[in-house]
């Protein structure tokens, strides 16, 4: 899940919630739907394979990316897929952020969101 300590409201776009390398890999996976590490490295060729490997491990551990082990007698590799669509991830992150806001400020938060809904 998104680490609260890592959220930075001042950054642009998804960089608010992820590191720049994580964002690039996530966006690529959303675009391609599934991919191997070598394919990712071909598309993001300014990063080293070691750097991409570390980032992929981290994304899998935090549950944003799923990987499947292809394990036959002659070949072994991981295939990566995004665990959520971009919209699903939006919901997930919003829920966590709103929950924490409600924890701190109570009903004021839901009232504020009511106003936004009316405007829409």
């Amino acid at each position, binding site marked *: 899940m998104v680490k609260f300590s890592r959220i930075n409201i001042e950054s642009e776009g998804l960089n608010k919630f992820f590191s720049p390398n994580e964002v690039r890999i996530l966006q690529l996976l959303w675009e391609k739907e599934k991919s191997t590490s070598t394919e990712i490295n071909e598309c993001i060729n300014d990063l080293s394979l070691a750097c991409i490997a570390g980032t992929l*491990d981290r994304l899998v551990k935090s549950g944003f990316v799923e990987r499947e*082990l292809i394990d036959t007698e002659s070949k*072994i590799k991981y295939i990566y897929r995004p665990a959520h669509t971009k919209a699903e991830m939006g919901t997930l992150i919003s829920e966590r952020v709103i929950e924490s806001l409600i924890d701190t400020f109570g009903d004021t938060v839901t009232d504020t969101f009511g106003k936004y809904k009316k405007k829409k």
Partner: protein
Amino acid sequence: MLEAIECYFSCIARSNTNFILFALVIIALTMGIIFLFSKKPNHIFLSQIVTSVALVEGFLQMSCPMAGYVWIYLGLISGAMVLLGLVQVGFDRHIQNLEIEGSRFSRNLSFELGTDIYLLDTQKIKAYSYKRKIYLSVGLLELLEPDEIKAVAAHELYHVRNTPNRFMANTLAVASLWFKSYRDDIKADRFAADLAGKENLISALRKLEVSNFKKRLKGIGA
């Protein structure tokens, strides 16, 4: 420091039970010499145990005022040993969490190489020999061609076969997190080049982007 050493020896000379210490030292030395000829891991292990007992026995015989310093040194050494042990426990868990069991690929690879290969569940590029087992990561196996994998496995096999015993293997494995033993690596490289072919080893080392690439090339005479 020098005074402490002087005190150590004078205390031992004055002690009534110093013959036990001498006996232990002689046993440890004999086991060490036997190991040089037999190359059996158990012999050097026994020698290590007797040496540790002799060390403690020696410190127990301290009686002069400088002995306090000697105890402090002993404390520092045991502290370091405990720390090393803790790091090892941590590393054990780390590897246990990552190990993939029942992989078809690794079963096939183990059969081909004639030695057991264990897999690590990570995209990172890792190859370890730890506790007399060879671990290769999925990331490494994805990156290398079969002949290059053979070269890396042979390199690790050298480490597995040529570390005197389990105790030493563990300590070395933990210590090597900080101190890389180039000399051992170069011997292992030579072994791997003989077994799997020089060009396979070189291309594997290049792909793995090892930090001491040029030195390693020189080591295998390329």
